């Protein structure tokens, strides 16, 4: 006998993600899930962004890492509230891990929360965390073929950052090719081409984040009919 199930496999994770979202919303926090290969510049982007945000936007960070505390210590050294999740070998963060991490952060003092996912372009995007925005960070040394190789990741992103443009001259990185690949799977996500090292292009990214914060702060306008 055949029984219809018709359920998304990760629905249990999605349910916890929805609880996390409610928690974040109640605290007035905008949460950003940063996903990238190891070394693309997630931690650098968090620190460079923190430097440029107005004081009125205090940030917090959840660091996901296979085993180390290196990134968390670095972030903490900048006076940013941070909590570390060691996934113990898991290649992605999931919603229950974030649920636990949220318990450990002083949520009242945070308006913008960065979640640094495990360095991996394969699967993290498939595990909802409850964040408001998913951002993929790619970087010039990785090459311009990433959207073609990991389309699922780019398809689910709300914005894409291309980091390390200061080394564009050293690599045969074809920006137009990269962008075409991104547009194949994601026609609308803004692309921020920047360098955390030099700071070039960071303003556009920070402005976009501030707009997303504003969008959240405003009560939704009822559509006139």
């Amino acid at each position, binding site marked *: *006998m*055949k*029984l*219809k*199930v*018709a*359920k*998304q*496999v*990760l*629905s*249990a*994770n999605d349910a916890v993600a929805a609880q996390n979202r409610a928690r974040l919303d109640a605290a007035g926090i905008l949460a950003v899930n940063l996903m990238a290969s190891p070394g693309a510049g997630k931690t650098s982007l968090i620190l460079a962004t923190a430097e440029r945000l107005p004081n009125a936007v205090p940030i917090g960070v959840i660091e996901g890492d296979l085993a180390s505390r290196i990134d968390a210590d670095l972030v903490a050294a900048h006076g940013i509230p941070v909590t570390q999740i060691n*996934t*113990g*070998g*898991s*290649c*992605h963060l*999931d919603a229950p891990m974030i649920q636990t991490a949220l318990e450990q952060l002083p949520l009242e003092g945070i308006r913008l929360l960065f979640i640094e996912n495990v360095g991996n372009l*394969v*699967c993290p995007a*498939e*595990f909802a965390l409850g964040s408001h925005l998913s951002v993929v960070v790619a970087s010039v040394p990785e090459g311009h*073929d990433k*959207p*073609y*190789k*990991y*389309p*699922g990741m780019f*398809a*689910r992103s709300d914005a894409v950052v291309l980091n390390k443009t200061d080394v564009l001259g050293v690599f045969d990185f074809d920006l137009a*090719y990269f962008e*075409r*690949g991104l*547009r*194949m*799977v994601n*026609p609308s996500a803004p692309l921020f081409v920047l360098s955390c090292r030099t700071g070039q292009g960071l303003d556009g990214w920070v402005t976009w984040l501030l707009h997303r914060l504003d969008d959240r702060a405003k009560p939704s306008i009822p559509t006139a009919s």
Partner: protein
Amino acid sequence: MLLEILEQNYLMHELAVTENILALALEAAQQANARRITAINLVIGDLSSFVDESVQFYFDLLSRGTIAEGAVLRFRREHAVAICRTCGHQFQVSPPLLPICPNCGDHYLEVKGGQGVAVDSIEVSDGDEAESSETGSQC
């Protein structure tokens, strides 16, 4: 125990997914008072990161001692489709994506679908009956 060793050293994302597949299947079987799960029909998007062999591997480990032990996993791939914005040609794609349209050679393409991972249905028996579903069609 093997699973603990796996969890500590090499926890692939398929483990998480397979745990959920098994839980959904057991829940559906329980609700129908089924005694045995003989097959699980899955739909996996071609753009998802889940590899059939890996899901099967974890399933064989996780299902031991449950009513799903020995169940057949059937994978139906949900294909992603690329549409050429220049000539309208449509073709099936999987990663790595083809950067140009095989019909007109232009490179303005749009890719849709292929992202879901779902349990479509399960096949169950009461345990006493002959298991007739074994040769059932592929979903």
